[in-house]
Structures are given as C-alpha cells and as structure tokens.
C-alpha cells in the first residue's frame, strides 16, 4: 500500500521520523507512482525558490543602517543602548512613507482655531466689553463688525481685532505658502477659566476654502490649494 500524499510531502521535508522515513525511502525505490509524486513536490520547491530574485544583502544592510546596527560586528562609538537609540531609528524611517505634507488649508485652520479660542477666552473675561452677554454672542458680534482690506500683502500686520471672515478671505487670496504669526496684545490680561470655544460659524457659501467650522471644532473637508 502506498503512503498518502501528505506523508510524502512530510518525507520530502525530512520530517518523517525513523523507522518510517527509511521504509518510505525503500518504497519509493520500487514505486514509480510515489516517486513521481515526490519528484513533483521537489520540482515545486525548486520553482518556488527560483522564482524572483532580489538583493537580499542590500536590504539587510539598509535595515541595519536604519536601526543603527553595525552589521560588521564592530562596537559602535556610542555605548548607548538600543532602546535609547530608538528616536534616531525612528527618524530614519523612509520619508516617502511617513512624511505628510501639511496642506495650506490645515495651516489656516490651525491659525483660525487659535484665534477663535483666544478671542473666546478674552471675551469671556470679567470686565471686558459685553461681559453680560454670552461669550459666543459677543464674539459673533465682534466678528461681524470688522473686515480687513482684501489688498493685504505678505509682511503686513493685522492689528486690532481681525474677524474670522476677513482672515478667511485674506488667506483665500494667497496663492503662495505664507507664514502666519499670531501676536497677542502686549497688555492683554489672560486668565484660564471656562472651556475654549469657537466663536464663528460662517455660512458655507461665504468660504471657498475647503474648510468649515461647526460648533466647537474645525473640520477639514478637503485638501488645500
């Protein structure tokens, strides 16, 4: 009786213990059918191993380099432990996989978020104008009261209390990357207290930047320009 294919497969892997291993070897000498099956398994192995070539040594060396491991076995100059070297290894991650370009709209959203939170806090301070009204209502009034000239150029300073609408309009007109510095009033008195609050919800048609504000947070809805 012939061994089944599963046993022949294990035999080809040298995974059959004695004395069965020797018995199968003897059987294969006299059984053409089983010998063909084993030959087929070995051909498959050869085809699998022969298929595709790559520079294994180069990949091993690249990973070693990224991990800061000296493959030659020489002691590295530094005596720090591998765990302590982790940040360096992290930094060497391939940029293409991990670097995320920050879209212009995201930068603008961050700036607007900061302005919104700060103005919300300032307006909520006791003694400030409109202290009797809710911070949200006061801020909305303040935002609708002013507008920046659309002709502002890079390098200009927005003084006073620029509104969110005017900021959005200004940012919308800028085609090149710009740097935004938000400067707090030098004599401002800030105190912690209350929850930060976004103070403006512009109508969707008024803002063509792929940016929307809803309730207490900014939601990015698409890529920047």
């Amino acid at each position: 009786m012939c061994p089944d294919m599963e046993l022949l497969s294990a035999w080809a892997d040298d995974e059959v213990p004695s004395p069965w291993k020797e018995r199968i070897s003897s059987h294969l000498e006299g059984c053409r059918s089983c010998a063909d099956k084993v030959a087929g398994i070995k051909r498959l192995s050869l085809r699998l191993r022969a298929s595709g070539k790559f520079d294994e040594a180069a990949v091993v060396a690249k990973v070693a380099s990224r991990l800061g491991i000296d493959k030659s076995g020489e002691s590295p100059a530094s005596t720090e432990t591998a765990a302590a070297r982790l940040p360096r290894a992290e930094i060497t991650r391939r940029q293409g996989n991990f670097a995320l370009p920050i879209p212009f709209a995201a930068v603008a959203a961050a700036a607007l978020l900061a302005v919104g939170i700060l103005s919300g806090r300032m307006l909520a301070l006791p003694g400030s104008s409109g202290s009797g009204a809710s911070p949200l209502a006061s801020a909305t009034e303040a935002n609708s009261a002013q507008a920046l000239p659309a002709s502002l150029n890079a390098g200009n300073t927005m003084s006073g209390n620029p509104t969110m609408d005017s900021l959005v309009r200004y940012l919308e007109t800028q085609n090149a990357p710009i740097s935004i510095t938000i400067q707090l009033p030098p004599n401002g008195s800030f105190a912690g207290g209350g929850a930060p609050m976004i103070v403006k919800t512009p109508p969707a048609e008024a803002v063509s930047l792929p940016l929307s504000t809803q309730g207490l947070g900014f939601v990015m809805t698409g890529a920047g320009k």
Partner: protein
Amino acid sequence: MFSSGSPPGEKELRELYEATASLLVRIAWRIAGTEEAAEDIVHEAFIRLIEKKIPFPSLDDAKFWLIRVVKNGALNHAKRKGREVRAYEKWWQGERVASDPADRDLLRSETEGEMRAFLERLPEKLRSVIVLKEYGEMSYREIGKVLGISEGNVKVRAFRAREALLEMMEGKKDVS
C-alpha cells in the same frame, strides 16, 4: 544573552539581527513582493521589538516573535496591495472591453511572477506555512512555534499548500 529575562540590549540586538535579518527579509520579500516593502516591514518589526522591551527567555523566542511580526506585516501589506491591484485591474478591464482579443493575450503574457501569483491565491494559513518552509527553510516544529499551531497541523497545511499549488500550476482549478 537572553536568559536574564531582560529586554535585549545593544549587543543582544546585534546578535539577534545577525541571526535573523536575512531570514526575515526573505520572508517579507516573498510575501510582500518588493524590496522597499521588505525593508520597511523588517525595520518596523525591530522597532516594535525595541519599543515593547519584551524580555525574551532565549534568542529563539525573540526570533520566532520577529518572524511572526514580519509575516503578519507582510501579509497585511500584500492584502492592501492586492486590493489596489484588483482596483487597477477592474479599471483596466473596463478600459479594454472593446479592445482586440489579442490585447488580452498580450496582457496575460505580460504577467510576471507566476509563482508569486499562485502563492497569493493561497489562503493565508496555507501561504504562511509554505513560505516559512520553502523560503525560511524552517522545520515543522519552528513553523508551529511561529504560527502557534501543532507540528501535525503544519504538516497538513504544508501538504495542502503544495497540493493547491500543483493544481494551479496544472491549471486545474483555483483555490479559495
């Protein structure tokens, strides 16, 4: 080196790397399909090992852990790539619906890596075993440790993977 039960230090890490890197890269490449992916997957595995500070009782335990992480990472990568490729193929077929049948033959003949394609059609549990066996040159016992299954189960899966591959090579049927 690993008997103290403490996380591997620099020396142990180098020792582990020298003992496993070629094997890990080979397994990752065979499953994931590109050198870049293999490099990233093996790198990530070592980073995870360092980050987790797992106290391995022996070099073999650390090696099996790494093989498991690399195998899983490579399979995940292959899955993602498979979805992408299927999406491209769907689009490509749509574009070529009205084209000459000769184009389809040409497309078929352009397909490279036939054995890789066969491997990709294997169910994961069979593919893992045959890749570790054929490319990792590991014993059934080692494969069982990596995959958390018995040696007997490895034997059955190795056989079933080969049977399926032989059938695919003969063009008998697909395996799902």
